[in-house]
């Protein structure tokens, strides 16, 4: 994987626009101000991912959906336990003990983020992108992330990590969004941006 700094910056900007729209749509939904950090676009080995981003042994809630349209891939949300409750509360307006209800609320939240994220990127690139209904899995981060890349037949030592983090009322929501493109998609995006 070799991209110039300019290409990675352009890609980061595309993701920034997508994430910005996503943050706005959650803000509207919950009537609270949600911000998004500058996205991270890096090529990392699994080892670096586990030491610099999140340890492979952390238990997480994973919500994953397939991206369909001109550029295929997956959109993966990784939510640690504590953040999961906070997100559910944000959606439901008050704390709840009903696990099924919380799971459904967080799943719906990620659905909204996915689609506004993809809608904004699609607009920018003049293509149509949609996500399929999400699959939810509780597992170790290492198992989740490697399975997500391998489900797209990506077996390389190094992976392109495209990640967004959201904040709410100065508190980190610790929900990471990973965009996992099919092979060749990044080249296609870079090309369509004309750089």
């Amino acid at each position, binding site marked *: 994987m070799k991209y110039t700094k300019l290409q990675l910056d352009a890609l980061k900007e595309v993701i920034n626009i997508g994430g910005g729209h996503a943050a706005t749509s959650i803000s509207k939904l919950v009537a609270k101000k949600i911000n998004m950090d500058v996205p991270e676009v890096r090529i990392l080995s699994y080892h670096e991912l586990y030491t610099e981003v999140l340890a492979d042994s952390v*238990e997480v809630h994973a919500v994953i959906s*397939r991206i369909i349209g001109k550029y295929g891939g997956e959109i993966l949300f990784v939510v640690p336990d504590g953040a999961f409750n906070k997100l559910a509360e944000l959606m439901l307006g008050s704390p709840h003990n009903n696990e099924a209800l919380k799971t459904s609320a967080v799943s719906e939240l990620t659905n909204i983020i996915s689609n506004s994220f993809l809608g904004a990127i699609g607009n920018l690139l003049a293509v149509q992108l949609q996500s399929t209904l999400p699959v939810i899995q*509780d597992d*170790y981060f290492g*198992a*989740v992330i490697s*399975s*997500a890349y*391998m489900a797209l037949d990506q077996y390389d030592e190094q992976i392109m990590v495209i990640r967004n983090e959201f904040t709410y009322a100065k508190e980190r929501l610790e929900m990471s969004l990973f965009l996992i493109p099919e092979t060749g998609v990044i080249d296609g995006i870079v090309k369509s941006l004309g750089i």
Partner: protein
Amino acid sequence: MGTFIYDEQAKIGGLSHIMLPDSRPFVDRGLLNTAKFADLALPEMVAGLRRRVPEANLKAKIAGGANMFNFSTLSENGDVGQRNVRAVEETLSALKIPLIAEHVGGKSGRTMIADLNDFKTMVRVVNCKIVYI
């Protein structure tokens, strides 16, 4: 997918973590990480064990091979989890190492920890009871 190969008498053992069944489709990709492929990693580990104990009476335990996300981009040979299990079993059989125990398949990832003092092998799955194989 984890493979523990050991000999209790000789007090020796090795643990391998592979991700793929077969290195052959990747030979033109330059330098391969042999530890990642069932067909390369297991013979290499066994050779390492036999260098220390040539007469070792080796046995194996395996865990892993889950298929978490079923997006069916997959080949007719089954998902990569299933193919890993099959490849490890075939490689062990070619190396004439009996498979003593396994904990494979399903949808959840596993952590495998082998203890070289008592050769107990712990398998942990999220939200499940720890099992020893």
